[in-house]
C-alpha cells in the first residue's frame, strides 16, 4: 500500500515559513497570492492486509508520531499502488 499524508499548520497557528514564502512569491511578481501555508508531505509504503487496516494504521501513525496535533492538522489518502 502507499499512504500519502498531508500535514499542515492548524488554522490560527502562525506559519512563519508560509509567510516568508508568500513574501518571496510576491517579490517574484506573483502578486495575487492571498495565503501560503507550508507543511509536510509524507509517503509511506507498507504492507497491510486490507484497506481498512491500512486506514487505521496510518491514522495511528499520524497520531502517535508523524503529526504534532498541538499545532498541525492532517489528512491522508491510501492507494493500493
Amino acid at each position, binding site marked *: 500500500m502507499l499512504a500519502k499524508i498531508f500535514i499542515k499548520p492548524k488554522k490560527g497557528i502562525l506559519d*512563519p*515559513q508560509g509567510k*516568508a*514564502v508568500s513574501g*518571496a512569491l510576491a*517579490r*517574484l511578481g506573483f502578486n495575487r497570492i492571498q495565503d501560503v501555508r*507550508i507543511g509536510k508531505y509524507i509517503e509511506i509504503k507498507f504492507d497491510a492486509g486490507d484497506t481498512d487496516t491500512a486506514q487505521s494504521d496510518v491514522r495511528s501513525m499520524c497520531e502517535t508520531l508523524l503529526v504534532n496535533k498541538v499545532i498541525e492538522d492532517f489528512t491522508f489518502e491510501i492507494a493500493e499502488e
Partner: protein
Amino acid sequence: MPKIKAGVIVFPGTNCDRDTYYALKQTMGCEVDSVWYETKTLRKYQLIVIPGGFSYGDYLRAGALARFSPVMEALREYTEKKGLILGICNGFQILLEAMMLPGAMQRNDTLKFICKDVQVRVERNDTPFTLLYKKGDRIQIPIAHAQGNYYGSEQTLASLEKQNQIVFRYCDESGNTTEQSNPNGSLHNIAGLCNSETTILAMMPHPERASDSTLGNDEGRKIFLSIKKALS
C-alpha cells in the same frame, strides 16, 4: 599600494556579517563595507563575502529565498569581471541555490544542527583562497549548520573531481577522509568547493571563527591571508 576593498553582503537574517567584517579587518587590514541586499552594483570591490546566518530565516530551504535578492544580479555581473567571492556556510547554500555552483544542500544526516570543531583537508593550494596552505594540510575549524549535507548527482560529482573543484574535505586527525570524520553526510566528504576558474570559494566551515588566537584557534586565518596575497 591601494587598500583592498571588500564587501560583506547582508541579507535579512544574515548573522555572521559583523564577525566576518571584523575578521577581514583584523587579518587582511582591508577596507570593508557592509553591503545591503538591495545594492545594485558591486563593481568597486575586489572581494565579496557572503557570510553565514539564516537569510530569510532559512525558510523553505537554506538560501532559497536570498537567491532572488537584487544583490544577486549584481553578483553575477561581478563574477563576469572575475572578482573574488567567498561564500561561508549560508553563503555556500545561497551560491548553490543561485546555481553559481553545482549541487544542493540537504539536512545534516544527524537531522540536527551541529556546532563543533572539525578537521578538513586542503585539497588544493592553487586557488586565491588557499595559496598559503600546503596541499594536504589538515586544519581544525568550526562548523555550525543544520543543512550542510552536500549532494551532487553522479555526473556532478565526477565532474567536480575531474576538474579538481573540491577545495576542502572533512577528514580525521590523521588527514584521512573517513565516514566517521564526516559530520553531516556530505557526499565525497565535501566541505568546500570552488568554480572552475577558482574565483569563487564556497565552504561550510567558518574561517572567521578560526582567525584569532584569543578564541583558541587561528587555523582558518590563512584563508584571509591567502586572499590578501592573491589580490596584492
